[in-house]
Structure formats: structure tokens, C-alpha cells
């Protein structure tokens, strides 16, 4: 069965499913690089699928921005969720700009 997923930015390494996926389903990305892959797990609707193998500690990218770091290794097609992704503290000091 072919499942659709939304890829918001070409830099993203995850896409958001618009239908629930079963293991082995073909997932076709709308937007971004438009790639197609095979789901490696049962993934709920609106949840994320990894578009490439990602190591523990690496950043997950959505909207072209980091949304957190992985707490375990993830294979291409795996489910990425709050169970294997955590937010990291902001470096506010580096974000201020000089005021003339």
C-alpha cells in the first residue's frame, strides 16, 4: 500500500505521515526532495518517518530546522517520536544581535 508523507524542506531528514503506515508500506514524500521509501515500522498518522539512517545524538530536521536530538540509533523508515527524540537547551546568549 502507498502512504503519503509531507516533507516540508529539502534539508529535512524526517517526513510527516498523512495516513497510518504498516511495516512494509511504500511511503511517498510530497514536497521536499519527493523521495519514496519503505516504512520499517507501524507508524501512527501525523507521526514522523526517518528518511535516512540517523545516529544517536544527531539532530532531527523538520521545517529545515533542528527539532531535537535522537536518544537512539534510527534506521531509514523507522518511527521518530517523543520516545526517541529529546529537546536540547537553547543557547540564548548566541542569539542576541548588536544594537547600534
Amino acid at each position, binding site marked *: 500500500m502507498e502512504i503519503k508523507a509531507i516533507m516540508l524542506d529539502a534539508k529535512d531528514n524526517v517526513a510527516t505521515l498523512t495516513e497510518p503506515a504498516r511495516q512494509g508500506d511504500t511511503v511517498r514524500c510530497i514536497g521536499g526532495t519527493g523521495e519514496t521509501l519503505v516504512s520499517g515500522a507501524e507508524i501512527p498518522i501525523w507521526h514522523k518517518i526517518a528518511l535516512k539512517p540517523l545516529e544517536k545524538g544527531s539532530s532531527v530536521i523538520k*521545517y529545515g530546522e533542528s527539532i531535537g536530538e535522537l536518544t537512539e540509533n534510527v534506521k531509514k523508515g523507522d518511527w521518530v517520536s*517523543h520516545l526517541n527524540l529529546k529537546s536540547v537547551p537553547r543557547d540564548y546568549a548566541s542569539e542576541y*544581535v548588536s544594537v547600534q
Partner: protein
Amino acid sequence: MQFMGYKRSEGRAGIRNHVLILPTCACGSESSRIVASQVRGAVNIVFNTGCSDVAANTAMSQKILTGFACNPNVYGVVIIGLGCETVPHKVLREKIEAMTKKPVVSFGIQEEGGTLKTIEKATRAARIMAAEAGMQQKEPCDISELLLGIECGGSDATSGIASNPAVGNLSDRLVDLGASTIMSESIEWIGGEHVLARRAATPEIHNQIIKVCEDYEKHLLAAGQDCRAGQPTPGNKDGGLSTIDEKSLGCIFKGGTRPIVEVLEQAERPTKQGAIVMDTAGYDISSVTSMVAAGCNAVIFTTGRGTPTGNAIAPVLKVTANEHTYQWMEDNMDVDLSAIIRGEMTIPESGEMLLGEMEKILNGKLTKAEAYGFSDIAVDHVCRFV
């Protein structure tokens, strides 16, 4: 662009013409509810604070009460106090009278000799005020009189992908037409604050946006709380939002792309026209309360999971891009944006459609929460009651 609204002698025009029954404190809330139920055209709020409070909490509750009274959708105000609260009804009335020329009357339950006597007098006053309000005619008002509050709640992954960008497009259209919009919920900028700050009209505003987020995190840490422990909520996680960063990067789309011209404190009135942001809680009810107190005459609210919330003073227009939620909770959802997810509608098309819906609301069409008479309120506070 124009709408038919109620001109006020000061400030923006109203899109509604309510008589507001306003308790000074929790002890006046039940009497206020009963008076409002007796008089067509009257609305009330239930207030859970206003007494036994530290100064910072009192300042916040006073900003909410005076802000609600001054909101352009309010024709006149009937205040019901108790008599021993921190800010008695006469003092609150004088504060409001110093801010607006609209009619304001007030009563105290202890002075009047109990709730029934107070309700009788307040009902009579509200009836007279409602009759006068009914005589005020709607007039053509420029869209620049609109101050739209932009809110999200019960978010899921459809919010950041579709409904928030759609509302952001609406905000851009309104700002280009001369109206103003406020996006709030500063805790839901965290993780996307560096992206939001790029919209700042000046370097000072850029730094204000970063500082609001830094201070919010520090404030919660001082209470022993990590903001990441409560955000995202369990419902957000079930809906596919894994971290506060992911939620925030989707949330901030709802404010659009135009330059941010002002950063407001909670419930503070804007001094600029255009795209504005406000430092409020991520708790949607509290955030809407603060924006309506700042003078928003309408609110647009995106959701993924579905929410019923409404405000007594400003209509809340509920939009979702989650097809299941729209169908399952249609009695609470106003606009279905799921065509965006299906690839059948673009973001600019959805913004144009929302502008048409908003025009109807400005001209008097009731939102679903408004038709049900919903009156949610939550006043933010900094520490325990005393």
C-alpha cells in the same frame, strides 16, 4: 476593506455591542452570572481571583478586568463587587472611567445587603444599559480598526503544516490592508525563537523576542520546573509533536511573515499598527484572556485535536486542518482546512478563504463557541494566594 461595526468614542470599533457584567473578585462571579442570564445582550465572566493576592497577581488581575471593560466589543459595564476585596468596586469603576467614556455602574454585595438585593439592582441597571446598546447603529469601519488575536490550542502535526501557515497568510493579508494582529504564547516560541526573531522590525525587537524566551525558561526553572517537562502536552505527543522545538517551529507560522513592530507584555494594549507579538503562557485560555484584555475584537484559533473554547467578549473562530477532527467535532469547529493537507488548496488560497470568513464574523456572523455562549477565562499568576 471595511466592516459594519460599533464606533467608540475612543480607540477601535467594536464588532459586538455587549453589556459586560464584571465581578471584581470570585465572590461577585455568581451574582454576575445570574444577572447576565436575566438580560439579553449581557455577558459575564467568572473570575477566580481578585483577593488575597500578592501585588504582582493583583496587578495582573486588574489589567484583565480593566482591559475587558475597555475592550471595543463592550458597550457598557456593570461591576459587582463584595466589599472587602483587594480592589473594591468603586476603585475599579474609577479606574475604568479614567480609561474610557463608556457607561459604567457598580454595586457591592455587602453594601446592598446580600446577593438578591444586589442582583435586583444590577439586573435593572443592565437592562437599561442593554436597551441603550440596542439603539446604537452599526457604521462602516475601516479594517484598520481590527485587532485580531491569533491563538492555537490542542495542536497536532497538522497545525504546523497547514492551519498555522494558513492563519499566517491571513495575518499577512490583514496587516497589508492596515489591520493589526497579535500572536502570543511565548513559551511556544522556544526552539523557534531564532526564526521568529528574524521577523523583527528592529534589532531591539529581535533581542526582546529572544529575552522573552530566555526569561520564561528562567522563571519556570526558579520554580523547579523545566519547560520541556510540560511541553509538548500528552495530546500534542499523540498527535505527532515530539519536542517543544517541533511544536514551536509550527506554532510561529500562525503569526505570518510581516515585520514584527512591537513586543507586548500580557494584557498590554498595543501602541503600534501591524504584526505584534505578546508574551503570554502557552495555556491557550490564559493567552486568549490576555489578548482580549489588550483590546482584540476578534480571535482566530487553530487546532488539531479539537477544542471548544470561547470568550465572552470576542468571538473565537476555530479552524482545523485535521479532517477527522473537523468531522468528529463539527459542532465546535468553524472552518475545515483539511484540503491543504490533501493538496487541494494552497496556503494563499486558504488565507483568502479565511479573510472571507473573518469578514463575515466582523459583520456579525456568530462563531460556534459564541453561539453557545462560552465564556472561558484564565488569569495568569506568578505565585500562591496569600
